[in-house]
C-alpha cells in the first residue's frame, strides 16, 4: 500500500504541476469528472481522439502552408478546429498558440504562420508527452490496486 500511496502522491503532484505550468486547465478536470462507471475509459478515449485529430490537423496545416499559394481560409479553418479540439480537452497552451496562429492567418503572414505551426507542434508534443505520462501513472496506480485520486 505504501507503493500505492507513493504513486498517488506522485500523481497528484504531477497533475498539479501540469495545471500550474498551464498545460491543462479546468476543462480537463471537467473531463475527469465525466468519467464514471459507464465510461471508465472516457478521458483516455477523448484524449486519444484528440491525438488522432491533432496529428491529422497538423499534417493538413503543414501541407497547406507548403503550397505555393497558401489558402489562408483553409488554414484558418484548420486552426479553428484545432483550437476547438484542444480547448475541449483543456490543452490550454495549445489553445493559446492557436489564437495567435489565427491572428497571423488573418494578417496572411506566412512567416508568422509557419512559426506558429512550429510552436503549435511543439506545444502539442509537449502536452501529448505530459498526458501520456499522466496516463501511465494512472495505469500504474490502477495496477498497484489504488484508486485515482480526484483533483479538487
Amino acid at each position: 500500500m505504501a507503493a500505492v500511496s507513493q504513486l498517488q502522491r506522485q500523481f497528484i503532484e504531477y497533475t498539479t504541476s501540469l495545471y500550474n505550468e498551464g498545460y491543462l486547465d479546468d476543462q480537463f478536470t471537467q473531463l475527469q469528472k465525466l468519467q464514471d462507471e459507464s465510461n471508465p475509459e472516457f478521458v483516455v478515449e477523448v484524449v486519444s481522439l484528440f491525438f488522432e485529430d491533432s496529428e491529422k490537423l497538423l499534417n493538413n496545416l503543414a501541407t497547406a502552408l507548403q503550397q505555393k499559394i497558401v489558402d489562408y481560409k483553409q488554414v484558418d479553418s484548420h486552426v479553428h478546429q484545432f483550437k476547438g479540439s484542444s480547448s475541449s480537452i483543456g490543452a490550454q497552451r495549445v489553445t493559446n498558440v492557436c489564437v495567435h496562429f489565427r491572428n497571423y492567418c488573418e494578417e496572411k503572414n506566412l512567416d508568422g504562420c509557419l512559426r506558429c505551426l512550429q510552436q503549435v507542434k511543439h506545444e502539442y508534443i509537449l502536452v501529448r508527452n505530459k498526458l501520456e505520462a499522466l496516463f501511465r501513472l494512472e495505469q500504474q496506480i490502477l495496477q498497484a490496486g489504488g484508486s485515482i485520486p480526484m483533483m479538487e
Partner: protein
Amino acid sequence: MEAKKIITENPVGSSLKSDLDNSIHGSKSLLTPNEFEMDDVLEESVVNIDICDEGDQLVVVDYVKDTYANYRMIEASMYSLLLAACAISSCEKSACAPNPYYDPYYGGMMTTYSQHLLGLMASAVRRIFSNISTALTSPERNHPPRRRSSGSNVYQEEFRCYSVCVARLAIMVMLAILIGLLTLLTWHFTKVYTRTSLNSLAYGLRYELLQRPILRMWKILNSTVEITTSQVKLSEYVIRKYSKAENQAQQVELYEVMRDITWALFSSRKALNSMSIKYRNGFVQAFHRDLRDKNTYYIYSNLDNYTMVEPYSMNRSSPHQEWNDQMIHGNVSAIWYREPLDPDTGRKTGKQKEIPPDELINIAGISQVPDGAASWHVAVSKFTKSPLLSAALPVWDEDRGSIVAVVGVTTALYSVGQLMKELVELHGGHIYLTSQEGWLLATSSSTPLLRNSSSGFTLTMAKDSEDEIIQSAAKWLNKTYHDKAPMYHKVHSATATLGQQRYYIDSFFLNLTRLPMVGVLCIPRKNIMGKVDAREIKTLIILISASVCILVVGCICIFILTNGVSKEMNLRAQLISHFNARRKAEASSNFKSQFLANMSHELRTPMAAVIGLLDILLCDDSLTNEQNATISQIRRCSTALLRLLNNILDISKVESGKLVLEEAEYDLGRELEGLVDMFSVQCKNRNVEAIIDISDDMPKVVRGDSGRVIQIFANLISNSIKFTTSGYIILRGWCENLNSFSYNENFFVDHRALWAAYQKKIKRKGLDEKKASKNDNTMILFFEVEDTGCGIDPSKWESVFESFEQADPSTTRLHGGTGLGLCIVRTLVNKMGGEIRVVKKKGTGTLMQLYLLLSTPADIPRESYQLKFAEHNLKVVLALNGRMSRAILSRWLHKLGVPIWEANEWNELTRVLQELFKPTSYAQNLMYECSEVESLSKEGVEMSIFIIVIDIGMLNISTDIWKEQLNFLDAFNRRSKFAWILNHDTSNAIKIELRRRGHLLMVNGPLYKTKMIQIIEAVIKESSLEQQKKNIMWTDAHERLQIDSRPSHTKSSNESEITETNSTRSSQIEETNQENFTVYGVVSNCFPELTEVRSEWDRLTSFPNDNSNCEQQTHQADQKVKNGQKALEGLHILLAEDNLILQRVATIMLEQMGAKVVVVGDGVQAVEALSIQIEVDNFKTSCESLPYDLILMDCQMPKMDGYEATKAIRRAEMESESHIPIVALTAHAMSSDEAKCLEVGMDAYLTKPIDCKLMVSTILSLTKCRT
C-alpha cells in the same frame, strides 16, 4: 405511342408524383371524390408518415386497430407504390423504344399485381387505369404541337432552300453587274483613249497637210515679192540713170538694159510665169514662160507709137489722171511682138511674131497700183488653166514724185495644186485654197479651176467646183457657219458628212494683204479612223462575248460552289440537330436514371410499410387459415418486389455513376462467414451444403466497402442456391500479394493461364498506384463460388453478366429473378478493380471466379494457429453430414497437424468412437462411479484432448432414439469434448437436453474454420482449467457445478484470482453476475470468445440469458442515474457537431445529466433530422411534444455550417409555427460571433470549451421558457 420525348412525358411523371404527394399531404387529390374518400386519404397518409418516421422497424401499433384497418393501410400503401410504379414504367416506356403493346402489357402487369393482391387492389387498379389513360392521352394531347413543329420544319427546310436560292441569285447578279461594268469600262477606256490619241494624231496630220501648201503658197508669194521688189529697185536705178535720155538711142538703150535686167531676174526664178514692165509711155516689156510648151517668150510693144518726151512732162500732182488704163488700152494701135527665147541663155531663137496686146499675159498697169503701193491679185491667163498670182509694184522716179513704170510679176499657182495633190493622194482627201471671197485658187483635185465663160476664163467659186467633195465641203462650211466670217478663224471638225462619207474638215485662214486666203482640208474619216472604227465594233463584240462567257462560267462556278456550301450547311444543320437530339437523349437517359434512382427510393418506403404491416397481420391470431395463407403470400410477393426495387436502385445508381465505394477497414472473413450463416438456412431447407473455405493467409482486415463486397457474394450465392437442388455451394477464397504474386499455386493451376493476362494488367496498374499513393499492401483476393446446380451453357458465360439477361429465359418462371443480380455483381467487381468470369468446371454446376483488388493495412499480423493446436495434442472426430465441408475441414486440420477421424453417419461415428476409446468401451457403466480411477488408469488417453464434433443431424430426432444416442455419447463425455453443430430449426428441447447432459459447446451450422478454431480454443481453455482443477482437488460442492456450471465457475474464480487486485468496479460486476446467477448466464460468461455464436443463439432461440443481461444493464443504468444529477432528465437534445472529441464530450456530459442525445455530424443531417420531425408534426392530430427539445449547433461544420442549418430550420419552422431552441456552440469567442449567431435565429450561445454548468443553466432556461 411514339412518345420519344421524355420531356413531353415529364409532366405525366411529375403529375403522378405530385399526385402521390398530394395524397400523402391529404390535400385535394387528382382523383374524383366518389372513388376516394377524404377519410381514407387522411388515414393512409397518417400511416405512411408513421412508417416513414419509424423507418425499417415498422412497428406501427398505434394505428393498427383491427385487421380491417390493416387491410386498408396495406391497400393504401400498395396504391401509392403502384402509383409510383406507374410513373416509373410510363416514364420507362416513353424513354425506351416505342412499344405498340404498351397498353396490354401494362394492363397485364396490372393484373399480375392484382392477382397477387387477390382483389384487395381492385379499386386501386381502377384508379391506376384512369391514371394510365391520362398518361396515354397526354402524349396525344402533345401530338398537335409536335406535328406543327414538323410542319414548321418543312417550312424551315423550304425557307432554307429559298434563302439559298436567293443568295445564289444575288451573288450571280452581282457578278453580272461587275463583269458588265468591267466590260463597259474596258471598252470605254480603250475606245476613248485610242480615239483621242488618234484624233490628236489625225489633227497633227491634218495640220501638217494644210500647213505645207500654205507654206508653199507663202514661199511663192515671198519669192514673187522678192523678185518684184528687186525688179523695182533695179528698174528705179536704171531709169534714174537714163532719166535724162535725150534721144531715141538712149531710150532704146534704156529699154535694152531694162530687158537684160528683167531677163536676169526672170531666168533666176524658174517658177515665175511672167514678168512685165510697163512704162509710163505705154511701152511694155515682158518675159513669159509658157508652161504648156515649155517655151519662153519675150514680149514687147512697138516703140514707134511712143513719144520720148512725154513722160517728163507729166503732171506730178495728178499722176493717176495722167496715166490711166484708158490711155494704155486706148493705145490699141500699138503693136506687140513676141519672140521665143532660149530658156537658159535668153537668146533669141525664133522670129518675132506680132501678137495682139494683152492677149497672152496680164501686164500690170498703173491701175493696179492706184495708191502707189504694192498690190496682189489673182489673175487668170489665157494660156494656163490655173489661176495666176500676180503682184504689181510701181517704180517711182528719183524724187518720188511720180510713178515711172509698173513692174508686174505673175506666178502660176499650179505648183501649189500639184503639191496638194501629192499630199492628199495618200490619204484620199481633198485640199483646196480659196480666196476670201470663196474663189478657188488651188485644189488637190484635177478638175479645172477656171471656167470658160463668155468673158473668157474666170475663177470658179468653191461651192461651184466641179469636184463634188470640194463643193460639198464648201457648202457644209457655209451652212455650218452661215457665212458669218467663218474664214477668219480656224475650223476643225471631225464630223462633217460629205456625200455618203464622214470627213474631217479643217480650214486655215491665211491673212495676206490684199489677198487673204482660206485653206480647207477634207480627209475622209475612214482613212484615218476606219480601222479604229472597225476594230471598235469588233472589240466591243469580243468584249461582250468574253464577258458573257465569264459571266456564264462565273454563274456556274457560283452555282457549284453555293451548291457545295448549301450542302455543307445542310449537313451542318443536320449535324447540329443530331447533336441536339443526342444531348437531349443523353439528358433524358440521365433523367431516367435519376428518376429511377429517386423513385426506387420513394418506392421502398411504402414497400417497407407494406411488409411491416403484413408482419403485424401475420402475428394476429384471429386470422382464418385462408387469410393467413393469403397474407403470407402477399408478404412473399412484397419481399420479392422489395428485392427487385433494391436491384433497380443499385443498377440505376451504378448507371448514374453515383455508386461510390466506401473505404473502411473491416473483417472480410467474418463478413463472409456471416453471409454463409445467413444462406445456410436457405441451403439447409433445400438440402444443399453451404461451405466457406477461406485460406489462412487471407488478411483478416481489409479496406474497402464491406457492404458492396457482401452484396457481390450474396448475389452470387443466392444465384447459386436458386439453381442448385442438391449438392453443395462452396465459397472459396485465397489471396496473393500483388508484389510477390507467383504462379506456383496449388489451387486451380489449370486456370492460372487464363488469369495471367489479367494479372499483368493489374500488376502494372497496381504498381503505378502503389508508387503514387499509399504504403498499404494491395492484395489480390481470389474467390470462387462453386455449385452443383444446373450450370450455365458456355455460350452464355459472357452474356449472363448483362442487364436483364438470364442463361435460360425459361428459368424465370421456375426460379424467379430479374437477371439484374449478376450485372450488379460484375459492375461492383469491376469497380473494385477486379474481374469476374464463369469457368469450366468438372461435373455439373457453375464455377464463378473473381478477384478483387483490396488493400490491407500494412501492419496487421497474420494469426497462426498451427503452433497452438499442435502442442495441445488434439485429436478431432468430425461427425458431419456434409461431405464437402467435412473434407475441407479435415484437410485443413490435417495440415495443422491435428489427427482426424471422420464419420458421416451415426453408425460410423459409433464405430470410430469405440475404436478410439476401446479400453473404456466395456466399462461404460463404471464411468460414472469411478471416474477418477479410470482417469488415472487411462492417463495416456487423457493426455490428448479429444474433440468430437457432431452434427445434430446425426441424431435421429424424428423418433425418440436420439436420447438413446445421447446416452451412448455420454460415455465419452469425460475424456472428450463434444461440440454440437446445431441447425437453425433444432428444437429447444434437444438443446436443453444437451445442456443438461453437459454438452455445452454448441454452435450453429454450418461449421467452418473460424467456428472450428473457436471450438478448439474453448476446449483447450477448458481442459487447461480442468487440469488446474484436478491439481487443486475440489470439494463436494464442486460436484454440482461440475455438472451444471463447472467451467463457468472455475473460470470466474480463476478470473477473480487473476484480477484480484482489479478495481472494485469489476468485482462488483462479478458480484452482480453471481447474484443473477442462472445456468445460462454462466454459460454465456464462460465462452466470451464465442460471442457471436452466443448472440446467434440468443437471436434464434430467444435465449433467456437476454433477460438477465438486460436486467443487469438496467440495473447498472439505474445505479448510474441514481448517482448522477438529473437536471436534464427527459430532454431530447440534438447535437450537431463535426468534431469527434467534442461530440463525445458533449454527449457524455448531457447523458450524465439525464438527457437523451442524438448526434449528427453536420448541418445537413441536422436539418434532415428536424425536417422529418416537422413533417410528422404537421400531420399529427394530437400535438405531441417535439422529439427534440433543444439543438446544440456547432457553427463550423462541413457541408452546411451552423448558421445555414439554423436558417434552414427556422424557415421550415415558419410553416409549423413551432420553435426549437437552438444553442450555438462555437470556438469563436468574440461578441460579433454572438451577434451573428443570434441574428440567424439561434437562441443562445455557448463557447468552446463547453462549461458544464453554464450549458446546463442555458439549456434549462431555454427549455423552461418553452414549458
